[in-house]
């Protein structure tokens, strides 16, 4: 820990943003709306998901504000139901699922494998348009009155009892699902077929491995959700169906089909984040990721095991005790590859030359929060404990630790890490470090009390609660305010940096990925010459030699 920074920026007085790059190549709205450049599509996605993140965040703010007092006084209870349902739907399908893959993944994955573009550029653009159509449908749903089934569309509540806009919400998720399928399909094909010469599977950055695993889940899981939602919509329209017990259907069949997608979906959300963490931790400790192969295979293992555990969401719903036993045991399996990752990242830090730039702060936050989130997942996967904890705030805290503490921290780590590559400019370091710390503190203040609330038995999805829970809820709401500031800061200073940030140069972090060995912002076709991969991933000595050679020849 002798060096305080690894940042190596060019001389600011002479440095210029390269005149030819993917941003400057064409101008005008149409050049964006009709682009097939993966980098531009990534930016389109970044803008859209940021928008939906703040819509979902505003809804979260309303939820926390309502829960400030024990009575339901800010809004009526059915409005509260709509608010938390819309919060869930928007955050899951319009932020978390596309967050890292569709933005950062879209931008850097082709460059990491040394390709000029994703394998199917037009399908990539189509995926963004589908996302926009789905987002429009979701906003329409919200404008005409929302939906209050919970994001899980639980039958027969969604098909029979409620008069809210289940159909348009269901269609929105259906369309968003196809957007996600096309992204995943594109990644798998790209990783298989578009790698540059010398880029063997075990030279791929771990970011790519993580995206490969997440893409498998998108391609194999999402269609089952799609057909399930089609059946729900049909059941609602013709009043005949396979899910409503009054009509002879089985609501558990819905749960099986729904969670067959929606459990793997949490790995769709977290795996790309884990990929970001691998890149960031390695770069800021100047070491190859410890146990590269183990981390690579643990991604695939999470994807595969992820398909065998879905019924742990159904322990109290009346599934067979024997099935619960099997699914509970299988759930423990997922803890193994997740732990492998955490341990290997920790060993990467061990004796590394660690520096604490913003991405690293977020990544370290991720390590702690994801570990807590993951471990509490084991409590919930244990059938016996789950019966006490399920449908309480313990579950809410658990998945927010994984999704917000894990994925959102990873997303922000990634955005800061690749910001210089995307825009060619640095974000302001001090204030962003502050934002990272504020986020971490705000997050813990918001969600840690919810573990205790859950243990004490406060149920989720109610607008009111017994007065003795108020003190912890006040902490939680206060934390949410801090968290909100933590999320607003990056929007402000990242926008500021677009014009006033320091020129970053090709490789400000001295990172080894192929995406860093080219200009920032990159050319439309990424590389002037198709690169040849002649070294292992995370080979910092190679980078060192490369730079010495450049100095010698200059």
């Amino acid at each position, binding site marked *: 820990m002798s060096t305080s920074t690894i940042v190596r920026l060019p001389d600011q007085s002479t440095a210029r943003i390269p005149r030819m790059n993917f941003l400057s190549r064409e101008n005008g709205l149409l050049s964006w709306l009709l682009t097939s450049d993966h980098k531009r599509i990534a930016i389109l996605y970044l803008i859209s998901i940021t928008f939906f993140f703040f819509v979902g965040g505003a809804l979260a703010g309303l939820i926390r504000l309502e829960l400030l007092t024990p009575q339901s006084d800010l809004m009526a209870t059915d409005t509260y139901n709509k608010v938390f349902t819309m919060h869930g739907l928007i955050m899951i399908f319009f932020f978390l699922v596309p967050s890292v893959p569709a933005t950062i993944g879209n931008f850097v994955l082709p460059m990491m494998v040394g390709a000029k573009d994703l394998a199917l550029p037009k399908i990539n653009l189509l995926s963004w348009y589908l996302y926009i159509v789905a987002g429009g449908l979701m906003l329409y749903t919200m404008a005409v009155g929302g939906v209050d089934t919970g994001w899980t569309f639980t039958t027969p509540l969604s098909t029979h009892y409620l008069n809210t806009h289940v159909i348009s919400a269901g269609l929105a998720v259906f369309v968003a699902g196809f957007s996600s399928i096309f992204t995943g399909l594109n990644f798998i094909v790209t990783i*298989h*077929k578009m*790698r540059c*010469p010398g880029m063997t599977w075990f030279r791929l950055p771990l970011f790519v491995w993580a995206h490969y695993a997440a893409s498998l889940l998108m391609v*194999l899981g999402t269609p*089952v959700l799609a057909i399930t939602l089609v059946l729900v919509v049909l059941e609602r329209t013709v009043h005949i169906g396979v899910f409503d017990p009054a009509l002879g259907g089985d609501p*558990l*069949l819905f749960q*099986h089909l729904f969670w*067959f997608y929606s459990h793997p979906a949490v790995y769709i959300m977290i795996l790309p984040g884990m990929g970001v963490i691998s890149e960031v931790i390695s770069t800021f400790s100047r070491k190859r990721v410890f146990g590269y192969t183990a981390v690579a295979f643990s991604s695939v293992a999470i994807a595969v095991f992820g*398909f*065998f555990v*879905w*019924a742990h969401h159904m322990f109290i719903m009346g*599934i*067979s*005790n*024997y*099935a619960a036993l*099997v*699914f509970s045991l299988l759930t423990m399996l997922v803890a193994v590859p997740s732990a492998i990752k955490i341990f290997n990242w920790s060993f990467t830090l061990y004796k590394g030359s660690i520096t604490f730039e913003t991405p690293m702060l977020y990544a370290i936050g991720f390590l702690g929060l994801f570990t807590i989130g993951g471990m509490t997942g084991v409590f919930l996967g244990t059938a016996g404990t789950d019966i006490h904890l399920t449908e309480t705030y313990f579950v809410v805290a658990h998945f927010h630790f994984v999704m917000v503490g894990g994925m959102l921290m990873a997303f922000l780590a990634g955005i800061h890490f690749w910001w210089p590559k995307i825009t060619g400019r640095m974000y302001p370091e001090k204030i962003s470090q502050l934002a990272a710390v504020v986020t971490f503190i705000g997050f813990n203040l918001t969600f840690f009390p919810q573990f205790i609330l859950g243990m004490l038995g406060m149920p989720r999805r109610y607008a009111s609660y017994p007065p003795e829970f108020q003190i912890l809820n006040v902490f939680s709401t206060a934390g949410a305010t801090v968290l909100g500031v933590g999320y607003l800061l990056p929007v402000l200073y990242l926008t500021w940096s677009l014009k006033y940030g320091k020129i970053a140069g090709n490789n400000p972090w001295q990172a080894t990925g192929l995406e860093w060995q080219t200009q920032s912002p990159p050319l439309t076709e990424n590389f002037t010459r198709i690169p040849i991969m002649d070294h292992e991933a995370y080979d910092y000595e190679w980078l060192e030699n490369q730079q010495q050679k450049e100095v010698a020849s200059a």
Partner: protein
Amino acid sequence: MTEAHEHQRHIVSPKVYLAVFLSLLCLTALTTAASFVELYVFNVVVALAIAVIKAALVVLFFMHVRYSNRLTKLTVASGIFMFCVLVGMTLTDYFTRAWGQW
């Protein structure tokens, strides 16, 4: 990128297509005929077995999987595998729901 180049496009001859086509028609006739015979539980077994054989013929010859690279074969296999996981793991619940309740 070896996998991209090891695969030479194989043109399947029309004779093979014709043979597959005729066998598919025969199997269709066979499965319909078999349904008119009382085989008890084996009616389902026979019908599905014939359907699997027909599907296999289409996949292997019409869809060229027999002549394709390992990646395509793996994709087909993973499709079948995931379908089995969906059905099989769900059935662990349906089969055992009544256990211990009589």
